[in-house]
């Protein structure tokens, strides 16, 4: 590996941007493909597939066997609301290798006792969210039901390209939420990014079951191609 390629690779990773190294294991040729350049790459299809799965591996191509080293940032899960659902959702996310953060300004909810081993930020979203670097490898959920807390959090998420945004609340609650966010100047296209009612429709009743429904929907968003995910 050329040192300058290695340097670019490390710089991209430090910036939390996905990158793939294509190595001809028989020829010794090597190149780096940044996430932004994948679409125009001759191997776009296999690279995209592997990026989505986050899996390195060997591929047979017209140019011979190549090894694709896939580097994707570890996904993070940002939960606004230190509520009952979060008590299952946070450890569930951790089990699925997400870096989990919980944001809730209500200090009675946001306690380390309720969330052992989880990063809990007892602050308003406006203060807590910007340092979390909400990016395209972030799943973002709001669970407080309280517009004072959820709305600013959603506005922040909508200004970023996180791969999943979900908001707790019935269709009626969500309808009112959309009106408020629209009044804040959010476009219809942006509002359509919000998954609500949140979670896959598995008939979840208990807070823990709702957490499972949410995590399932997040996983689908992460792993299934966009158009297929919408058909589901």
């Amino acid at each position: 590996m050329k040192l300058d390629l290695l340097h670019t690779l490390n710089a991209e990773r430090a910036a939390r941007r996905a990158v793939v190294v294509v190595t001809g294991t028989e020829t010794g040729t090597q190149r780096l493909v940044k996430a932004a350049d994948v679409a125009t790459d001759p191997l776009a299809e296999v690279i995209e597939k592997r990026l989505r799965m986050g899996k390195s591996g060997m591929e047979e191509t017209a140019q011979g066997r190549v090894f694709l080293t896939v580097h994707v940032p570890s996904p993070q899960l940002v939960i606004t609301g230190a509520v009952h659902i979060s008590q299952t959702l946070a450890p569930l996310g951790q089990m699925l290798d997400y870096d989990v953060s919980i944001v809730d300004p209500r200090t009675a909810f946001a306690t380390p006792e309720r969330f052992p081993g989880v990063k809990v930020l007892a602050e308003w979203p406006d203060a807590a969210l910007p340092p979390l670097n909400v990016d395209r490898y972030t799943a973002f959920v709001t669970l407080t039901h309280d517009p004072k807390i959820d709305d600013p959090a959603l506005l922040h998420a909508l200004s970023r390209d996180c791969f999943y945004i979900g908001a707790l609340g019935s269709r009626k609650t969500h309808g009112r939420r959309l009106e408020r966010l629209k009044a804040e100047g959010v476009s219809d296209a942006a509002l359509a990014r919000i998954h609500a009612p949140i979670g896959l429709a598995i008939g979840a009743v208990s807070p823990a079951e709702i957490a499972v429904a949410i995590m399932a929907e997040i996983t689908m968003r992460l792993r299934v191609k966009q158009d297929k995910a919408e058909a589901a």
Partner: protein
Amino acid sequence: MLGRDEDILKAAEDWSKAGRGVALATVVETWGSAPRPVGSNLVIDEEGNFLGSVSGGCVEGAVVTEAIDVIESGKPKTLEFGVADETAWKVGLSCGGTIRVYVEKVS
């Protein structure tokens, strides 16, 4: 896995910039039960110092020896370890799997 691999690649860059001869070993294929997943890295310098892993410690010694050759020659190599090749390499994987490791010089 990602965090640790990132440290390994950073170490490869830092070692190389410090003027050390460096090779990078990557697990490129696995069959059966393999201790480390495809994409796992081991970085080696010309004195045999290493960081990371490509197995649970079963074949690192052999990879380090080969890596020192790769640092000298500059030519990448693909190594295979497993039950079938036990006699050829004199090391094998006790778990019964087979792995293929790509070793390349950082230069």
